[in-house]
């Protein structure tokens, strides 16, 4: 781990109860996120991953313990401001996060709320639309977009706020394979450009591009490490309610048969190269 990099988010013994309930949704979480990292938070339904996502930008605050963004507790006004400004969320259903009826106006919504001068908003919107490949449809009504385009619009709206970190809460789960690929391509591009990302997902296919994985089970952190070490566990993942996707299973069998070396990850391109060259 690179300790020179700036600490963006830090969780300390974070626990969370929904008001009036006795069972914690999140239990004693410790976790650090540094700038430039791409982290995957994995877990089955009900493992508390969406609740955790809402802590990152102070939509929820911990019942016990604390969540720090740039060293400020999100319970304080200062911390809440920093969290909202620096950490943006993209949610599961694109239809429920688009506010405006026109594509570019929706991208402008976040920066407008931040009170940024008009000229700069225009620049940011243009940049965000280009990164997400929506520049050609910027004047279109939002309801005419495809599912993948709508979710890319949500991503564009998040990056136009120029956050330090973007959190994607199951952002690909309502999309078809084409839309999922579109989003993943955009994320890879953003990550290369230095953006810090947190992907919250239950799909193991999506973690191969990440630097680090955190597995949640019943609200507690049960595992942390590299994607490769996680995927090697194979059927051991079932215990946490994670399903091993076919690609990873093929990858596991090929490794067992001694056809793939340890460095190869379950990415189609890498596997093809390793097997055919």
């Amino acid at each position, binding site marked *: 781990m690179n300790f020179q990099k700036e600490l963006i988010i830090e969780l300390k013994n974070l626990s969370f109860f929904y008001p009036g309930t006795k069972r914690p949704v999140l239990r004693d979480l410790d976790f650090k996120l540094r700038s430039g990292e791409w982290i995957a938070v994995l877990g089955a339904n009900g493992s508390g991953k969406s609740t955790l996502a809402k802590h990152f*930008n102070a939509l929820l605050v911990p019942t016990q313990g604390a969540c720090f963004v740039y060293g400020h507790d999100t319970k304080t006004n200062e911390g809440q401001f920093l969290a909202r400004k620096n950490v943006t*969320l993209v*949610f599961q259903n694109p239809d429920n*996060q688009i*506010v*405006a009826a026109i594509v570019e106006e929706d991208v402008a919504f976040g920066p407008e*709320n931040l009170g940024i001068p*008009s000229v700069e908003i225009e620049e940011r919107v243009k940049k965000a639309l280009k990164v997400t490949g929506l520049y050609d449809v910027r004047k279109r*009504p939002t309801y005419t977009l495809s599912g993948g385009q709508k979710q890319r619009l949500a991503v564009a709206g998040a990056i136009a706020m120029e956050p330090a970190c973007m959190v994607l809460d199951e952002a690909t789960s309502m999309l078809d394979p084409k839309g999922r690929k579109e989003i993943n391509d955009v994320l890879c591009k953003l990550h290369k450009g230095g953006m810090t990302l947190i992907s919250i997902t239950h799909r193991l296919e999506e973690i191969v591009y990440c630097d680090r994985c955190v597995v949640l089970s019943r609200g507690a952190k049960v595992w942390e490490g590299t994607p490769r070490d996680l995927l090697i566990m194979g059927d051991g993942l079932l215990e946490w309610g994670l399903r091993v996707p076919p690609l990873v299973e093929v990858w596991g069998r090929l490794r067992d048969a001694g056809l793939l070396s340890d460095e190869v990850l379950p990415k189609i391109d890498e596997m093809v190269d390793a097997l055919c060259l």
Partner: protein
Amino acid sequence: MKFLNHLTLGQYVPASSIVHSIDPRAKIISVVVVLSGIFAVNRIDSFLLWAVVLFVVVKLSKLPLSMVLRSARPVIILVLFTSLIHLFFTKGEIIFQYGFLTITLEGVMMAVKIGLRLVLLVMYAGILTLTTSPTELADGLESIFSPLKRFGFPAHEMAMMMTIAIRFIPTLLDETDRIVKAQIARGAELDQGGIIKRIRSFIPILVPLFVIVFQRADELAVAMESRNYKGGEGRTRMYPLVWSFKESIFMLFTILTTLLIILLDKRIWL
């Protein structure tokens, strides 16, 4: 095909035209002026003049004429109904009689005028919504009503509610369509039986629709909060409203045209 269905609701059609580029405040006030102008005149030739003006504006806006004509479709029943009532129930010189039905010369004139007036009103309002994006429209209204903020009028909240309502029309139409199909697939008979039965059969559509609307509202509120929305205070705009020389000229034209048509209608010089 769904796309076309939505368009007939009079929703914004982007294009780069002079009409599109005019400040929404100027357009809103102009529509109010023109609508009063249409109410103020009472001769068929005055209505025809208004139709000519409408035609010129449509040409300037680069919208297909058929699209503007279609914007009057939702009110066509209302127009026919009011025209027919005026046709049969206006007293005057009888030109046709069959049983208890009598048509008078005045009735015919009245029916034509009422029909033209209603259609023109809707089409002028239609041009406004076709050439102005919902956000612009909302910004314009917010700005026009902002002097009332001093008396506690929630101008910004009203504008934001309007934007979101317009944004969700197509989404909720799709949703309704899906629920209707789901209920039909479960054996619901929506177009059978008397009127009471038909109204009752819509309950299984309205209940899930309401549940979904509340869920969506909840998620949207969270999404807006996470995008730093804190109300109108301290917000900026990507395209701030600018009232330039162009808008002043446009307003002047609108007012002069309206006055001219009213004066011609009243035959002031006679």
